[in-house]
């Protein structure tokens, strides 16, 4: 990563983490609203990033959120999982000719339909994993599903609207 690129992602990381800890992990409305916007950091990293580096970044992101939210490993597990399946998914949804050079996944670089597919799959996966882990010894599948659907939609909407407003 060049210096400029590094700085851009660092700023995004700090911004998203603060937002996640201060706002999204603390919403006191209805009792189950908890969008996970921080994952945009992982989604938006360059496609050329070293796979091990990506996993380590995902793990650090998760563990930091775990510490703040007292969720003990749940964020870490879900984030690393999503990070691992990021590149296979990218290979699957992005056309060959595009994939030959490095790019940062966004609406601008991939176009709306492809980015939507990519982001939606990973975002739903993340929410489903995190909320299931949270319900670990507590069988409430209906609640896990409702939380996943509501919050995945919210997160996706946030990611898309931030990118749209920047473009």
């Amino acid at each position, binding site marked *: 990563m060049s210096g400029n690129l590094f700085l851009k992602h660092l700023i995004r990381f700090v911004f998203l983490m603060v937002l996640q800890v201060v706002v999204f992990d603390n919403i006191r409305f209805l009792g189950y609203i908890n969008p996970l916007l921080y994952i945009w950091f992982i989604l938006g990293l360059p496609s050329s990033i070293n796979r091990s580096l990506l996993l380590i970044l995902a793990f650090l992101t998760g563990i930091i959120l775990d510490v*703040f939210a007292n969720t003990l490993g749940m964020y870490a597990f879900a984030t690393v999982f999503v990070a691992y399946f990021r590149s296979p998914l990218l290979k699957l949804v992005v056309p060959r000719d595009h994939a030959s050079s490095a790019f940062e996944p966004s609406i601008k670089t991939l176009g709306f339909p492809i980015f939507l597919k990519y982001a939606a799959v990973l975002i739903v996966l993340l929410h489903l994993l995190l909320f299931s882990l949270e319900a670990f010894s507590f069988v409430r599948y209906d609640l896990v599903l409702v939380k996943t659907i509501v919050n995945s939609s919210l997160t996706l909407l946030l990611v898309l609207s931030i990118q749209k407003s920047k473009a």
Partner: protein
Amino acid sequence: MRYGGTFLFIILESFSLIIVVNQNSFQHASFLSSSNQVAASLLNVEGSVVSYFGLVDTNQQLASENAILQNRVTQLQGRLELLKDSTHGELQIAPDQAYHYVSAKVIGNSINRLQNFITLNKGRLDGIKPEMGVVDNRGVVGIVTAVSDHFTVVMSLLNSKSQLSCKIKRTNDFGSLVWNGVDTDYANLLEVPKHADVRVNDTLITSGFSAIFPEGIPVGIVTQSQKSSSTSYYYIVVKLTANFRTLTYVNVIQYQNLEELKTVQKEGEQ
């Protein structure tokens, strides 16, 4: 190199999963919780900003609490005078100082999870230890799980792992209070046998069995009480008295003789 990523993936996921699965043993590890010095200091800054927005409510709460306490002081003074008169001034009432309260500010409080925790700005140096009770001016809030020097993490009543021994004030029937995971205002009272008499609007208080909480601290009000046909227990819904959405200041209860009680209980069990 192709498998390098997968290998690291498995290691990181196993590590995370070990922490998730062994939650109970890691719960007291303060470096992994928000009582961690760095995390708590940041939360503290956030808390002090956020608390400005709630100053009006907080003031009102403190004022009303003040009024109630003042009333009790006058009441008790009256009783003391009366007792002194009837015993010709020889009476010496030994005050019950077994319980001591430490006031703390809430700097982190989640209610949107199944396992909710609260972070406080006081810690070990203020005498707080794991398994102490936490109350606000209306009722029970939770139990301390992790402590660092200056910060404390409390397992909220709104936690699917929380279990609180309670009793109905009117009839002294015991049960254990658990959260249903959905509504932040309500919890369920389990294990109350059908032969008991539980009515809507009955007050639920702490039982005082565990010495975490003294007996008689309000917990909630019964809003629904049904005899279920499939089990031999009641189905009881309780509206919690503490308001978890607006928690700002809480009291941590220190039971002075906790160690002694624990040793005696252990000896008794052997």
